């Protein structure tokens, strides 16, 4: 391997020997200290071999004696390569020019990469960078990253750190935004009762509980205080957090009548037809012979390509009706009243399956046409409400 590299450096030729006793020639060559390699017999009187350039010059005198003809098939190695190269001087000149251009262009900024901004807009940062002279196409020597970092930090308040680094023709701008502290840690205050009730469960996440299960509380009473002692025994003032479940009562009233009036059709109908042409109306059968009726109106008109024709036909059907008064049984009326009371409670987000206990109370009404019920529902809800300290 090293030897073949050496041969390549010194240069060698591929030669073709043509003659009868080439073995004799090879023996003569090595006796003279000429080394040959890659010897290959092509035909009976032709052998191709490789000889170094230096040895090739010594070859000729030996060939005279043996009547062997020699010719060069190929030239390999650095000297020949160099010779070829020298003929193409402009290639080298071009290569040098190319390298110079590459070096010159690498002195400019081609790309700017921005990382780390979330709240601050890209445009704002780039505007400041541009103001400082950093933009695609600017020369790298002209500015200092330090001044630019300072400019970014002083001009944009939300940034807490800025770093500018070069990677060839790429400028990497990294920023870190100031994170605003969590509101919960700033706020302080207590949890107070949002309504009257009997406390059943107290679960404190932060703060000192002021009530126990069994305590009756009124609206506005403090349930969990924001002041507490932390794990190191230091007094802290913070935002009380927790769940305080309490039994609370809701009242609602529902009413229902004993009579129900129902509209019914007699089955008689009367049809009035109207033909409208522009502003003119032609009506057939205009007189309605009923005192109480409902009307069903059908209209026929033709629309062509979004343009309504001025001719319209209307058919009104008059149904004669009468009103029937039905007596509602008391049990049905009561049920109706209770369901109306539940519907009223739905406004407070109370549903039937939440109720722990319900109590229905009949309230007497002076007139005999209806029923009124009072509904008392006991539910267990979280009554804790946060009251921030001023």
């Amino acid at each position, binding site marked *: 391997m090293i030897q073949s590299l050496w041969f390549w450096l010194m240069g060698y030729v591929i030669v073709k020997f043509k003659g009868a006793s*080439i*073995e004799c020639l*090879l*023996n003569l*060559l*090595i*006796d003279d*200290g000429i*080394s*040959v*390699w*890659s*010897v*290959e*017999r092509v035909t*009976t009187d032709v*052998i191709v*071999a490789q000889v170094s350039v230096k040895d090739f010059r010594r070859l000729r005198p030996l060939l005279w004696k043996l009547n062997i003809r020699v010719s060069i098939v190929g030239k390999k190695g650095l000297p020949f390569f160099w010779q070829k190269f020298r003929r193409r001087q402009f290639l080298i000149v071009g290569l040098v020019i190319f390298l110079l251009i590459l070096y010159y262009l690498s002195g400019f900024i081609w790309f700017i990469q921005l990382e780390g901004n979330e709240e601050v807009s890209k445009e704002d940062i780039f505007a400041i960078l541009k103001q400082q002279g950093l933009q695609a196409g600017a020369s790298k020597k002209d500015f200092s990253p330090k001044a630019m970092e300072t400019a970014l930090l002083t001009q944009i308040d939300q940034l807490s750190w800025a770093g500018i680094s070069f990677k060839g023709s790429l400028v990497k701008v990294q920023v870190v935004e100031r994170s605003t502290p969590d509101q919960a840690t700033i706020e302080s205050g207590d949890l107070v009762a949002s309504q009257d009730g009997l406390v059943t469960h107290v679960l404190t996440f932060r703060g000192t509980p002021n009530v126990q299960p069994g305590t009756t509380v009124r609206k506005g009473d403090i349930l969990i205080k924001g002041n507490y002692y932390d794990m190191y025994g230091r007094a802290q003032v913070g935002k009380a957090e927790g769940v305080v479940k309490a039994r609370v009562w809701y009242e609602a009233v529902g009413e229902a009548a004993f009579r129900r009036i129902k509209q019914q059709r007699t089955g008689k109908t009367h049809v009035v037809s109207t033909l409208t042409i522009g502003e003119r109306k032609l009506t057939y059968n205009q007189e309605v012979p009923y005192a109480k009726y409902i009307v069903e109106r059908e209209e026929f008109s033709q629309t062509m390509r979004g343009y309504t024709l001025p001719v319209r036909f209307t058919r009104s059907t008059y149904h004669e009706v009468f009103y029937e008064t039905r007596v509602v049984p008391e049990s049905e009326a009561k049920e109706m009243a209770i369901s109306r009371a539940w519907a009223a409670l739905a406004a407070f987000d109370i549903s039937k399956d939440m109720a722990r206990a319900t109590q229905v109370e009949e309230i007497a009404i002076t007139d005999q046409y209806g029923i009124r019920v009072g509904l008392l529902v006991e539910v267990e809800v979280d009554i804790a409400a946060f009251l921030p300290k001023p």
Partner: protein
Amino acid sequence: MAKSVDRIIKGFTAVMDMPSDVLMDMPRIRMMGNVELVVENHKGLLEYTPKTIRLRTKTGILIIHGRRLRILFFVKDELKLDGHIVSVAFSEH
């Protein structure tokens, strides 16, 4: 005369436990499988064709038969060849 000198050298190398190719000018033949062969201390190439290579050595003529034989390297007292070697033999003539 020459034979007796040889015998003395042979005996000497046996007693001294020395490699005989150094003193006795014997060919040293190294083969790698049947694809490569190196002969050191040869005394000249007698014949080269892709099927046969004949080399003169101190101990007789070394005949190598094979297919597609090629001389990779040929210098004074060393020859390296490759190809598909079938047989290596010595002959007195």
